[in-house]
Each structure stands twice: as C-alpha cells, then as structure tokens.
C-alpha cells in the first residue's frame, strides 16, 4: 500500500519538475531596468514602512521622530529585525512581493538583493554620489545600476598596546617594513603573540584581502566579469599574510568566537589586533575605560607596496520595487543622508557617517581615534560587487585557513581560489 502511494508521490513530484523544466530562463530578468521617476522636494506623506536591523533598528525610531517634525503628514514605522538571517527575510519578502517600503541592507548583501530585481534603482538626482566615501558608494552598484544609498560605514584599523609600544620605544608602524619589527618589539615586552589574525573563522577574508589590495591586487578584471586571484600582487599579499605565522608573530590557531580576543588583549598576551569602530566599546567592556584611555593605541593599517587599503563595510538603504509609499521612502532616505542628520545619528548610535561632509563638525573632528578611522576610510575598499561573492568569500576563508595553518602554500591556495571562483562564476544575468 505504502509503495503505491510512494510511487504516485514521486510521479507527482516529477510532474512538477517537468512543469518547471518547460519554461526556459528568460533573458530579460536580472537587472532592475530603468530608473524610476525623480523625487520631488515636497514633504513626504503617508506611512513609510522600513526594516532596520540590530541596534540600528532599535534606535532609528528616535531619529524618525525628527523626520516627522519636518514632514508632519508622514509617519515612519520602523520594524526592528535581527541581523542574523535577515537576508532570508528580505529574499522571502521580494519573492512573495509583500515588502515594506525600504530596508537597511548590509553592504555585502546589496548585490544579491539587487540581482533578484526586487529593488528599485536610486532615482536620478536623489543624492550626490560623490558626497559618500568612495568605497561605500562603490558597493551600492550592480550591473551598471545604483541600488542603495550608503548610510553608515565601518572599516578596520590597527589596535595595539600603547603601553608596550612605549616601553619598547617604538611607534605605530607606517609601512609593511616597520610592521614586523614593531610587533616583534611588543612581543619582547612580554606579549606571547604580536598580532591577532583570523585563521579560519567566517569572514576572515575581510582581514586578509587588504593585504592583497595593499600589494596592488585588483581581484576582478576591469569590467567585473572575471575573477583575478592568480596575480603576482595577490600572491605577494597572501605571502605577507603567511609571514606573520612563519615568523611566529601570530598564532596559527586564531580565536574562534566573538569576544575571545579582548581578554587576551587586555591581559597583554596578544599585543595588537585589527578591528572596526565597535572594538573600542568591546575593549571598554573587557578592560574598563581607563584601560582603553591609557593602554590602547589606534593606527591606520601599515602601507604595503601600493596602498594601505582596508576593508569597508556598513549599511545602505534600499527601496523595494513593490513599495507602497515609494516617494515617501526615498524622501526619508534622502533626509537620512543629510550631513546634520548623519551627525545626529553618530551621536545616538556611534555609527560612522557615510557622508564625508558629516565629519567636519563636532566630536567627529576632535576625537583622535575617529581621525584614524577617517583617514582609513579614504582608501578602504569593499569586496567585489558580484552576486556570488558570499560563495567565493567562503572559498577564500577556507583557503586562507590552509595557508594560516601551514597546510598549503599561498601560491597553491590562490590557484585553487581562482579555479573555484571561476567555476562559481560572477553570477551576472545569464
């Protein structure tokens, strides 16, 4: 009895497959088509539904209240969503065509969402693209269109034990040449490890790609259609990464989970680490405010043969094609990228403004740590904006780990990365 049921069910499933098979992939899908109508300067109206993730989602309503003062007929309704798996929620919304008006998007995910055709292109003249940090603006483009407006940015810089450096009589390294000796000097002051580097955790690539960029690598060809990991520059960068392990400056078994490195840094067993703007708060939590004030130094990444590029991440705003209040959503986003609003938001959240002009006033100009971030942001680069980047990045993570643990040479790793990345492809519209 059960077998006949089973075979019927299988036949049913196959029939469903054949239905799918009957329809070939149309050539027109992919990019979102033409830009929508321009947005007027009149005040926004109606309810604007937005999704925002993490602490941004919790704090945004306060900022939105200010928006309402200038736009009394509009009401911003914020739904806070955890960052964890938010991408699936956005994809599901796009697939079911039941979306809010706008959403915050992690900069690395924008390409993926844009490729589904569910996002609207940024209307012409809404914002001045050149007002943002270049790296941030770069990560809002996909297939010739612009699908997001940068809101806040983050980048990674060098955090080091200032007290150990002073005791050793060295100052923060400016170039690759000074980097190794600097870290060795800190190790002589009692630190077991000079620099904490990721060795196989998710998103290690964000800390390792900068070495390749600093050596002059591009990773993609000119028109973003092919990967280029098998270049001498990329090799130089990866060999430099490897040298930290062979010289015993860094441990081959880097920390596995979040929050593991801070106690080691506070205890002085690890003398330096590469991290983003959130690190100061984490170090305060682990060592107290005095520890951060007296013992933590911050510097831009040391310059390699070509540059001192770091990785740029952050959050963008995007509007859905199925938005009910499209104009209102774009008006809200335009308002969010005003320099004074960006400053307000920095005061409220600590998120670094994506608009360069916002950095010209208040605490953003006076704080020496922020000055370091500011100068790092000028050269920071995003990962390649292709839809398969997450998958290629996972290959990178795996191969980087092999180099770190000493089971693969940088050359062999890059050859495998190039082969796998080429097989995965860039996922541009077929």
């Amino acid at each position: 009895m059960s077998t006949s049921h089973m075979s019927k069910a299988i036949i049913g499933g196959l029939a469903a497959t054949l239905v799918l098979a009957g329809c070939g992939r149309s050539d027109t899908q992919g990019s979102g088509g033409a830009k929508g109508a321009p947005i007027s300067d009149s005040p926004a109206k109606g309810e604007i539904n937005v999704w925002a993730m993490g602490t941004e989602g919790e704090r945004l309503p306060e900022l939105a209240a200010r928006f309402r003062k200038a736009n009394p007929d509009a009401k911003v309704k914020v739904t806070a969503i955890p960052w964890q798996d938010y991408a699936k929620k956005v994809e599901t919304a796009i697939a079911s065509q039941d979306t809010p008006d706008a959403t915050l998007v992690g900069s690395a995910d924008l390409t993926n969402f844009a490729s589904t055709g569910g996002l609207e292109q940024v209307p012409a003249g809404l914002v001045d693209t050149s007002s943002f940090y270049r790296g941030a603006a770069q990560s809002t483009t996909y297939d010739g269109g612009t699908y997001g407006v940068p809101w806040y940015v983050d980048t990674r810089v060098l955090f080091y034990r200032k007290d150990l450096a002073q005791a050793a009589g060295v100052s923060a390294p400016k170039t690759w040449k000074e980097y190794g000796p600097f870290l060795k000097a800190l190790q002589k002051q009692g630190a077991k490890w000079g620099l904490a580097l990721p060795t196989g955790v998710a998103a290690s690539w964000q800390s390792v790609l900068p070495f390749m960029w600093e050596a002059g690598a591009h990773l993609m060809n000119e028109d973003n259609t092919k990967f280029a990991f098998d270049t001498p520059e990329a090799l130089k960068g990866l060999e430099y990464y490897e040298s930290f392990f062979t010289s015993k400056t860094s441990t081959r078994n880097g920390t596995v989970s979040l929050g593991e490195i801070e106690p080691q840094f506070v205890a002085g067993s690890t003398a330096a680490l590469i991290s983003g703007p959130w690190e100061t708060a984490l170090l305060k939590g682990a060592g107290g405010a005095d520890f951060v004030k007296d013992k933590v130094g911050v510097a831009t990444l040391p310059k390699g043969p070509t540059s001192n590029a770091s990785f740029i991440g952050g959050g963008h705003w995007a509007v859905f094609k199925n938005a009910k209040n499209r104009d209102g959503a774009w008006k809200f986003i335009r308002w969010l990228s005003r320099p004074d609003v960006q400053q307000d938001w920095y005061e409220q959240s600590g998120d670094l403004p994506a608009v360069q002009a916002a950095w010209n006033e208040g605490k953003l100009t006076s704080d020496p740590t922020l000055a370091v971030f500011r100068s790092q942001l000028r050269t920071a680069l995003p990962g390649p904006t292709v839809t398969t980047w997450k998958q290629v990045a996972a290959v990178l993570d795996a191969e980087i780990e092999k180099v770190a643990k000493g089971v693969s040479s940088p050359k062999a790793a890059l050859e495998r990365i190039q082969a796998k990345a080429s097989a995965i492809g860039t996922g541009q519209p077929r």
Partner: protein
Amino acid sequence: MTTATSLKPAREVSSTRQPTQRSRRGSGHLRRTVVAWAFCSPFVLLFGTFGIWPVFSSLSMSVTDITSRDVRTPFSVTFVGLENYTALFDDPTFVRAALNTLYFVAVGIPLTMLLSLAVAVALNSGIQRAKGFFRVAYFAPVVTSIVAVAVVWRYLYKSDGMINSLLSVVGISGPDWLNDPDWSMPALILMAVWRHFGIPMVIFLAGLQSIPPELHEAAVVDGASRWRAFRSVTLPLLRPTTLVVAILLSISYLQFFEEPFVMTSGGPLDSTTSISYYAYQQFGFGNYGVASAASYVLVTAIALLSLLQFRIFRARA
C-alpha cells in the same frame, strides 16, 4: 509497517459496533465522514503546506539551476537533470562533509546507545535513592538551549580550558580541541553524546521497566550471574526498544548540524562540516538547487539506514 499495526485496534472497534452498521451506508456515514475531515483538515492543511509540499518542491528544485536570483521569477529556471548531484560528488567539500557525517554516525550512535543503556540500567536497579534527581540531571542537557551549551563547552575545550587542565593532572597535555582538525570531530561527538543521550535513556528506562522482574529472578534462581541474566534475559527483551532508539538516533545524528554550527562553523579545515551544514551554507549562498540536492542525498541516506536497521532487527527478532 507501523500503519498496519495502528489499524488493528480501529478494526476491532468497528466490529463491536454491529447495530450501527445499517446507518453507515446512509447519511449518518456521510456526516461522520464530513465531521471527521473537518476535524482533521487543519492538521492536513498545515502538514500538507509545511510538511509535504516543501518535500516535493525541493525535489523539483534539486534538478534545476534555481538560485536566489530567481525568487521573483521562479518559472524562469532551467531543468538540469542530475547535474546538481554530480556537482556535489565532484566537490571535495561535500565529499568531506559526507565522510564527516558518516564518522559522526558511526562513532556517535554506538557511544550514545551504550551510555544511555548503562545509565538506564543503573537508574533502574542500583540507585534507588534520589532516582528522580538523577533522571532529571541526565535529561537536563536535552532541554538546554544549544547556545548555552555551546558557550560552556567552548570554555571547556579551550587549549587552557578545564578539560585540558584535568588531563594535565594525570600528565597528558591535551590538544587544542576545536582548533585541531584531528580532534575537532571527537570533541563535537563527545558533546553531542552528552547532549543527546537523555532521550534514549528515558526510552531504555521505559523498556527496562516493562520487563517483568520474575524473568530476571527466575534466571538468578537458575544460577545465572547478574551479567549473564542481563545478557540472556534483559538484552533480548530490549530488542524492540533498541530498534526504536537506533532509528531515532540515526535520523537525528545523520542531520548533524547544531554542534558544528555553534561550535566550529564547520572548521578547522572543513573537519566538522556535515551534509546538513553544507546544505545550509549552499542555501545561504543562494544555490537552492545544489542545497536541495544535498538535502536529498541526506534524505536518501536516512531512508536507507532506517530500512537497513529494520531488516537487521527484524531478522533477529
């Protein structure tokens, strides 16, 4: 097989209701059917939508090139036959994931069964006092959130963690458990066994309690040692229980996911990536076709292993 046994009592019930048989063919029967379906329909509807439908939609997805880019236009995908499946077996990461899953199943299931049986026997006979306390204590890991478990076990497994401190007391310098590709799997298996043996233990305990004590006493009177009595009386009578435990465990252990997800993210060097984790990753990359194919490999493996266990245990019973 299970349906056949569950049908039996129903048939007996209907045969005792001779007087109502005439009305069965009439409107009463129809009304009863309608009422029955009305009561069943919420479940049937939910189970159909969230249980049955996804099974077949993922089967059809596994033979197409569907990716996250197609979510708005699901009918534009192309039929690719078994390409996703061949791609899987060409991918060294998947092969590694399959081997890791087998490793986990082959070592984890016997360990869990032995431990749960041992504890169940101990609870059933030895420890009379505070039995309830121990039952709860051993069952607690099952109901503890995996996140809380992960936080604690990550501490235990650190290179200078508690496990290595204890080992150093007896002169063994322990490995860096979660960072060493040779030790990461044993570490996760140990944790999984600890986390999962509660349910088999309760099932074994129920099985043990259903064995009439006279049988055991008779064996002892006949001069059998305790071990002999356990082997010749208790174990054979536990066979149906053992089958249930083995099948439940293989179904849940083949889906090995939570431990690598919270502890190692599949690393170091892919040493703890499982088939489920691989499928999860592929879904994350938007490769729904490949992910569905990986899931179906897993489904097939579960079906085959369950079938095999039925065969083995039925042949012996």
